[in-house]
């Protein structure tokens, strides 16, 4: 099984007529994802390579029965697009947009929690989600993923997500689902949400968790793992050598004081029984070892 999405998930793309939306939306469809519509205000009635475009999310949902949305719109409009998706009846929103102001993210997150508690937001600033062979929403390249499980992947970083998929696929180890939660300060979905879902998924036998410096999501995940996780977890944390006080590309990747360092995160995870590795390659090798011993 997969988590959050499967082969039946119907997806609309908000921003399908834009450069990025078109490129990735069509790639997702070519992968086999049920991309049933696009949304661009003022362009309703047109189509993108055969995919019908609607003026609003509501119209698109009414016409297609979509439950998921892929938000690929510029930062200025992203918060409004996410709320429109929730208001239009979408229950799973993937937002890849990079560069949304933190204030907008904080308001949007709390608005969703308050008014749409059953809606899950993935991202923003994330690569999206792929359940190999079933559904790909976002910018992950489908050919580096291998269907069939048994590994679930959850990661805060885009390229390190690809690296993880690559390390496993090369060794013939498949993935149930790979979730990129994104590197922004207010992620809609966090490590624990994904770990819970993987823990409950019978086909997922082990989980790879890739974190980075900043915040305390990894520490919280470690606590949750210690108390609840029944499956082996392998982890790698990026940013051991990052200097404090400097943003390392991701808005969330910043060390303030002694909090959020890679060392603190690794210690917490190790203490929770997680196999903590020094680099992505080592993490891949460790996972191969664990899966082969299953």
């Amino acid at each position, binding site marked *: 099984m997969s988590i959050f999405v499967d082969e039946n998930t119907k997806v609309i793309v908000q921003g399908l007529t834009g450069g990025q939306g078109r490129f*990735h939306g069509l790639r997702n469809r070519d992968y086999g994802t049920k991309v049933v519509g696009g949304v661009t205000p003022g362009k309703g009635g047109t189509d993108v390579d055969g995919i019908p475009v609607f003026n609003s999310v509501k119209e698109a949902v009414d016409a297609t029965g979509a439950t998921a949305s892929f938000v690929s719109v510029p930062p200025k409009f992203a918060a409004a697009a996410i709320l429109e998706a929730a208001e239009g009846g979408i229950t799973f929103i993937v937002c890849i947009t990079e560069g949304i102001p933190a204030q907008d993210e904080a*308001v949007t997150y709390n608005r969703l929690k308050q008014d749409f508690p059953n809606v899950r937001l993935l991202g923003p600033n994330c690569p999206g989600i792929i359940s190999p062979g079933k559904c790909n929403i976002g910018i992950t390249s489908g050919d580096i993923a291998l269907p069939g499980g048994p590994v679930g992947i959850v990661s805060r*970083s885009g390229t390190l997500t690809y*690296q993880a998929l690559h390390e496993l696929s090369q060794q013939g180890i498949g993935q149930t689902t790979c979730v990129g939660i994104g590197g922004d300060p207010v992620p809609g979905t966090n490590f624990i949400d994904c770990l819970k879902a993987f823990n409950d998924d019978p086909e997922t036998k082990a989980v790879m968790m890739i974190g980075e410096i900043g915040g305390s999501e990894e520490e919280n995940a470690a606590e949750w793992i210690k108390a609840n996780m029944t499956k082996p977890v392998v982890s790698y944390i990026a940013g051991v*050598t990052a200097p404090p006080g400097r943003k390392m590309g991701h808005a969330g990747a910043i060390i303030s004081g002694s909090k959020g360092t890679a060392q603190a995160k690794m210690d917490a995870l190790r203490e929770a029984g997680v196999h903590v590795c020094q680099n992505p390659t080592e993490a891949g090798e460790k996972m191969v070892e664990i899966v082969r011993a299953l």
Partner: protein
Amino acid sequence: MDLFEYQGKQYFARYDIPVSPGDATDSVDEAVAIADRIGYPVVVKAQVKVGGRGKAGGIQLADNAEEVRKHATNILGMDIKGHTVHIIWIERSSDIKKEYYASFTLDRPNKKHLGMLSAQGGVEIEVVAEEDPTAISLLSIDPIKGLDLATAQQWVKDAKLDDEAQAQAAELLVKLYRCYTEGDCDLAEINPLILTPQGNVHALDAKVTLDENASFRHPEWEAFRANETEDPREKMAKEKGLNYIGLDGTVGIIANGAGLAMSTLDVVNQVGGTAANFLDIGGGANADVMAAALEVINADPKVKAIFVNIFGGITRVDEVAKGVLGALEKVTINSPIVLRLDGTNAIEGRAILAPHLNEKLITEPTMLDAARRAVGLANA
């Protein structure tokens, strides 16, 4: 973007937060003119983006023009923890009855805003936080609801601010919250927030970090950018639109994606090397971006080897390979380049580079191998 104190105070003033009258300058003569204009006694304050300037002698009281001249001369050019003072802020000296602390920032675990207020502000606030956490009153604020005056009035009582300060402090906190949210700050901090013997409350310092993602709605931030960084490598990278952070090592790093770039730094460190920089070239690694990246790294005299670490997802590795060759036609690179190319179209990419490989352009199959090679070359 971190602001200097004087910029933070200018920003506060936009939101009607009371600050001491003053002005910034980089010249001794102008410092005297400013002091004459605002009236003595004044304080001459070094503008550096690092704490502890008071203890380093970067804050001095002056009663007359002669003293301003003396202190301004001493402080301009002074080195404070590796930061050279280029600008000083001259402000009217304030009598201080009490020092408080106030700040707003994002509470990431709870995904709300966090207000911190203490009746024991001043230079020792971190010690206070450590030894007596109850001395700091925390307020969790729902971003949808915001902070209203009634809540702020209760908050200043809870934080045990002096009775005479409470009314003004509550009003100031509502303004500071507005500055933090509408002004798109990651951090808006006042330490110390002072109560004067005359019963006035105002900001004696300003520590503001702006959220760069919001710059599209703040044209006024342009004025803050002039003195943003003093590292010439970072200035050059910024002009070229690159996401670059200068470090002290000998291995220049180019990677696609922030996570992979961070990871590259780590791996270089693990195999006994030191990174000269963090550089994320993002998704579109074409020849122009690659040339710009190589140029910036090439300008760093400490660099002895360059490690290009690319994992093609959307970025196609054959395009990156063409980019590297295109870049090498545009710029002459002093150090050897070690490439690790993986992911989408990696085989095609390596084939493109194959005829051009030599002792200064090397490929390695994995991230670890490439790191070892680059570090070996840098340490040779």
